[in-house]
């Protein structure tokens, strides 16, 4: 039980720290951090499937954009207010991940990667195909006046930061609870030895489907929140780049750790931010750092800390 309470203390402490940082950091960084926290939810969703269940998807942009357009289109075209629109985003992500999971889980390994990649590509092309509604690559803006939840203006910096924090906190506590539950530990068993898990009587296929759906809904929540808080939805977010990003965040931060996704997202964001201030060839610099980290800390930042120093990290 001690490990559980330490894990809870870590999560609550991290949430408190993020709340405190708003008052300590300059506006530039709190703006970044709001964005990072929303994207970290995407990474946490990805981590649930990749880090804990051992399924490498290359199609998570589909779930992120399902949430983004689920919210965006119901507000933009349907005229809905943020709360039902957010729910619509979650439902669209739930349906899409259910269908993709049902079909893609007939495959494993490389085939699973390719099938998820293809689904995401189909999703991207769908956004472009219905360009008269989605406005394709150009995207659409959700008017500031519309982005108000319970009378709180979400385009305001302070409100936005704390809305992002609430979403992040909810996602962190939920994933923290999932991975410590019997269900979550069975997902780890599937990652470690799928055949053995089956021969212990676990319905591996069903559990993997649930993992895909949970992962998809978390990713969709991130996409919906991104559109709501930053007031924009565009096809860029459905491109393969946004399937690779969560993979990189999770790998850098530490796959199969609860706080790794946030750490990875922060690291990557500021790496790009800093490198692009130094040189135009910033992607080269970013690439070198990523390669070095992969070589010297293959378990990611938090994963390495856990392996070397703090064994109880959740």
């Amino acid at each position: 039980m001690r490990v559980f309470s330490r894990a809870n203390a870590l999560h609550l402490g991290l949430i408190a720290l993020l709340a405190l940082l708003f008052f300590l950091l300059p506006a530039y960084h709190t703006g970044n951090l709001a964005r990072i926290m929303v994207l970290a939810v995407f990474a946490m969703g990805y981590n649930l499937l990749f880090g804990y269940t051992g399924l490498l998807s290359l199609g998570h942009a589909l779930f992120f954009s399902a949430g983004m357009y689920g919210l965006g289109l119901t507000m933009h075209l349907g005229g809905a207010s943020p709360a039902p629109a957010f729910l619509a985003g979650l439902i669209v992500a739930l349906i899409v991940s259910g269908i993709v999971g049902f079909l893609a889980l007939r495959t494993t390994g490389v085939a699973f990667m390719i099938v998820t990649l293809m689904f995401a590509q189909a999703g991207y092309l769908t956004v472009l195909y219905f360009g008269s509604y989605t406005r394709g690559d150009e995207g659409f803006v959700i008017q500031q006046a519309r982005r108000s939840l319970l009378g709180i203006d979400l385009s305001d910096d302070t409100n936005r930061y704390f809305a992002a924090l609430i979403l992040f906190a909810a996602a962190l506590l939920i994933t923290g609870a999932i991975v410590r539950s019997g269900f979550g530990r069975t997902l780890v068993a599937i990652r470690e030895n799928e055949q053995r898990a089956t021969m212990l009587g676990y319905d591996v296929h069903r559990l993997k489907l649930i993992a895909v759906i949970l992962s998809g809904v978390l990713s969709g929540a991130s996409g919906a929140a991104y559109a709501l808080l930053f007031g924009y939805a565009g096809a860029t977010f459905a491109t393969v780049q946004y399937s690779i990003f969560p993979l990189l965040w999770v790998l850098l931060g530490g796959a199969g750790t609860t706080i790794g996704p946030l750490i990875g997202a922060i690291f990557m964001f500021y790496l790009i931010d800093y490198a692009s201030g130094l040189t135009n060839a910033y992607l080269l610099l970013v690439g070198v750092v990523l390669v070095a980290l992969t070589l010297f800390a293959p378990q990611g930042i938090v994963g390495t800390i856990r392996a070397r120093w703090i064994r109880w990290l959740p």
Partner: protein
Amino acid sequence: MSLLFTRNLTKAYAGVTANEDINFDLPKGQTRALIGPNGAGKSTFVGMVSGRIPATAGTITFGGEDISALPAHQRIAKGIAYTFQITSVFGGLSVAENVALAARRSLGAAAPAKVAEVLDQVGLTDRADQTARDLSYGHQRILEIGMGLAQNPRLFILDEPTQGLAEAEIDAFKALIRGLDPETTILLIEHNMSVVMDLAEAITVLDQGRILAEGTSEDVRANRAVQAAYLGTEHA
């Protein structure tokens, strides 16, 4: 009535019949050894019973219910535990977590007590927090058996459990099996004749995918066909 029986169970791989028309009956509470030369079809047979290998033809009845069409995990859930011939534990997880995963599916909240009991039973309590892949080979085999016990199985299938174990470990294994609830039905694939003779109440001999002989150890020893195929040769 038999806890497990198969009728005309057959497995054909492209051109090769690994099991042909196996009619096998295992009464409740019995410890049965399944022996035979390499390639006789022993692992194929238990693979079909546990659901890992789809049968080409025939039926499998367990606890009075036809389980032929069920996927492996549902058969396990009905009370069949299976230990792998090639050690298959969750290498990255702790010993206790390995056992807990086995216990939790069927026992839920009662699992922690069962884990403690099983670890004590197999003598791994001191190593509960070790990572499974850091255990010695012998201890991994024992852990594998512990994972079977943690499921409280009605039928416990052990595929060559003593393979690669030292003498002392084999003695410990024998003691462990003898100490189990006599109600537990055991199907044991085994090459080590001392283990077979010590533990098995009855023996089934497979050869070239068919049942060659069946009966008590005396019957089987006395069977000329068995002597020719198996015991009388290099395994005597």
